[in-house]
């Protein structure tokens, strides 16, 4: 048996040698970026990094290519798995013959255990919080991994997908390269990093020994083109096959007019919310919060941004996430808004100083909201600062109203915990992004997280959303989808409806016709 395996591996190696990536087509991708940041997948937090990391790594399980729906999760590096009756012990059986990039050999359970421990450690991962429920990870044998949970989690498979901390890295490469791993990462994905030219491009080469099959595309040239105008011109001039797009109807329409171009609009949507600090004046008064909610006109915001690329927010969790409900957000009613303001002692109007980013997409949206609120007598005095400063200052609790737009793993628990749980309130030791200081739904969020009864879990998540919306901890605005334009010659090999890596997955089936 061992002899046969050695022969097969030898044959695969010879096929790999004979297979020449340079003879295959090159996919040219234009990205709105100055440069990539950290390519260690457990530190890949920006869109720019997430997109490229998605082409280089696998998880134990994966979203079906082109989907961001947890219902489509399917085997990836693990070919099957089973769990104990109490749902706390999970055993994953790995595929055999999965090869890492370069000469880093075959994937084993040691690599998986190392990767998951690394992803769960604050010093070596930006996503360690997602793994706090994992008690232990051990390699039972070279192809079996056992995970024991401290407490039940809503979706263990969700944490282990090809997303954020779920990516599996080569233990040997990570240990050998140390800090250098972040610029020379080794995974098992269909493409391997060849080189990064600063401010210019990241070049990837097909992984000939990819366990599914050798990719049909030989190389990917991932070009950093921060200027939207230049990137669009390069795409128009056929210097790019795939172009990062703007979530803007005018842009979409303009691209669609070009012959031989398809615009893909896909999930996950980012939900923009006005987070209101309920512990400080003026938003410590429910009537003021309700007035603000009534002043917002979501339909108008969608018309402004574009009906193809956005939709109205209907809860404090994005639509389509497991557990989402239409939570009964207050309708647009400027008359009622003025009446509520008068009732709260602000008959002559109200001015709120708000720290906001100068990032054009967010600033433009906020300026439209500013006009809507002004009609109801609420003046937003925008203090516009640079984006990194904005992030720092809102985390220092310096703004009573925070506009924040985000997408997360599509299960309600993550969004509810990070934005609306008392443990996540900013300026606390366990802070994440709770700017509203709301903790009224903590009991429901906590109970749902550990519940093993799916019906009860959904009910609790729904209840949490209703409480938060009634308390007007935040006002949902719009959900904005991701947009890419591609030449028709580029065939993904699957229908693109969603991608958790925030860019089109380039798989072994993707081809340039």
């Amino acid at each position: 048996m061992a002899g046969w395996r050695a022969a097969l591996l030898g044959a695969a190696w010879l096929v790999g040698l004979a297979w020449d990536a340079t003879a295959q087509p090159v996919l040219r991708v234009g990205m709105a970026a100055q440069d990539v940041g950290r390519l260690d997948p457990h530190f890949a937090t920006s869109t720019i990094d997430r997109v490229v990391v998605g082409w280089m790594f696998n998880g134990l399980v994966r979203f079906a290519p082109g989907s961001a729906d947890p219902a489509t999760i399917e085997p990836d590096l693990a070919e099957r798995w089973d769990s104990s009756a109490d749902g706390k012990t999970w055993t994953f059986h790995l595929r055999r013959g999965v090869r890492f990039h370069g000469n880093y050999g075959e994937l084993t359970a040691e690599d998986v255990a190392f990767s998951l421990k690394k992803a769960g450690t604050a010093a070596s991962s930006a996503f360690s919080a997602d793994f706090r429920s994992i008690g232990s990870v051990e390699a039972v044998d070279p192809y079996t991994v056992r995970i024991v949970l401290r407490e039940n989690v809503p979706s263990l498979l969700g944490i282990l997908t090809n997303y954020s901390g779920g990516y599996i890295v080569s233990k040997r490469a990570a240990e050998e390269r140390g800090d250098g791993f972040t610029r020379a990462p080794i995974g098992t994905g269909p493409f391997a990093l060849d080189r990064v030219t600063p401010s210019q491009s990241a070049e990837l080469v097909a992984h000939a020994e990819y366990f599914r099959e050798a990719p049909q595309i030989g190389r990917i040239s991932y070009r950093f083109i921060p200027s939207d105008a230049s990137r669009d011109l390069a795409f128009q001039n056929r210097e790019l096959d795939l172009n990062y797009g703007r979530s803007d109807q005018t842009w979409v329409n303009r691209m669609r007019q070009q012959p031989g171009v398809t615009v893909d609009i896909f999930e996950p949507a980012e939900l923009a919310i006005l987070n209101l600090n309920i512990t400080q004046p003026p938003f410590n008064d429910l009537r003021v919060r309700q007035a603000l909610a009534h002043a917002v006109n979501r339909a108008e915001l969608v018309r402004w941004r574009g009906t193809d690329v956005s939709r109205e927010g209907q809860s404090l969790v994005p639509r389509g996430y497991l557990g989402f409900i239409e939570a009964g957000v207050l309708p647009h009613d400027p008359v009622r808004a003025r009446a509520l303001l008068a009732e709260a002692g602000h008959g002559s109007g109200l001015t709120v100083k708000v720290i906001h980013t100068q990032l054009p997409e967010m600033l433009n949206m906020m300026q439209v909201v500013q006009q809507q609120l002004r009609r109801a007598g609420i003046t937003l005095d925008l203090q516009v600062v640079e984006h990194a400063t904005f992030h720092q200052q809102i985390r220092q609790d310096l703004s009573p109203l925070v506009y924040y737009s985000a997408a997360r793993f599509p299960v309600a628990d993550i969004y509810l915990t990070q934005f609306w749980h008392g443990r996540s309130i900013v300026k606390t030791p366990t802070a994440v992004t709770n700017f509203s200081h709301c903790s009224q739904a903590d009991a429901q969020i906590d109970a749902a997280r550990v519940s093993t009864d799916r019906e009860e879990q959904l009910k609790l998540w729904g209840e949490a959303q209703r409480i938060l919306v009634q308390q007007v901890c935040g006002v949902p605005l719009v959900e904005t989808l991701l947009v890419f334009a591609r030449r028709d010659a580029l065939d993904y090999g699957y229908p693109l409806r969603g991608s958790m890596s925030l860019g089109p997955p380039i798989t072994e089936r993707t081809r340039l016709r």
Partner: protein
Amino acid sequence: MLFFLARRLLAAVPTLLAVLTLVFVIVRIVPGDPALVILGDQATPDAAAALRAKLGTDRPLWDQYAGFMGRALTGDIGTSMVTGRPIAAEIAAVLPHTLDLTLAAMVFGILLGLPAGIWAALHRNRAIDVAARLLSLLGLSFPVFVSGIFLLLAFALHWRIFPVIGSADLADPLDRLHKLLLPAMTLGLVMAAYITRVTRSAMLQSLGEDFIRTARAKGVPHRRIVWVHGLRNASLPIVTVVGLYVGILLGNSVLTEIVFNRPGLGKLIVGALNQRDYTMLQGLMVIYCVLIVAVNTATDLLYGVLDPRVRAA
């Protein structure tokens, strides 16, 4: 001359030290936490604290300053906080692109601006002069990101002579030149406009001097009066503008690099600023400072060559 050179180089040392200190302070005055930028918005305070400790941004400022100066004085500018790549290697990879662009723009600016300025001065208040002044005003009025897009629309999209993406293969001289022409033209147009105006005004002043009248009275040929007596005496303000403008070119190259998607110091510095990459910003500022000091020193030396009175002073 050697003494003059030594004096100028010595004067550059305190300038460099002052700039290093200023850079260190400015970079840290800008609000924004590199750890938050790197870890993204889902990072826990634990993770942010761990990264701050690793990056050294949690250490007292004086300690960070001492480390920075110590390394800078030994020629070590460290590694990028964000990418972890050595800064010297990152800069070395893009510096040739920026130098190509700056030098080509400077040559373009001089070749276009100098004759235009002289010609305008020799035809004062005539159609040629008015045209030169109008065109130079246009050149100064158009920001690089507007003229760049216009040139791209014309030469890349309409006539398809040049590519939109201007990042060239440094090992291929033809490719390098091909992708350099359009950005250099864009950047050089503004410089040409400046040089035209300065040359015109310096030449007008020079040509109105007594020694020019004397030369004319002595029957010196017109060509010699213009190119030798007139231009040599007008050259000091022109050299000053060119020297100063190299600094502006380096600054303007940021926009040109972004519009034409060329790698370079400008793109690197914008990225470092957005990501609060302190070490990269410091390294880049040091390089900019060295380049500017070098250009200013070269300009001073050129003064000495053009006008021996400067050396004597």
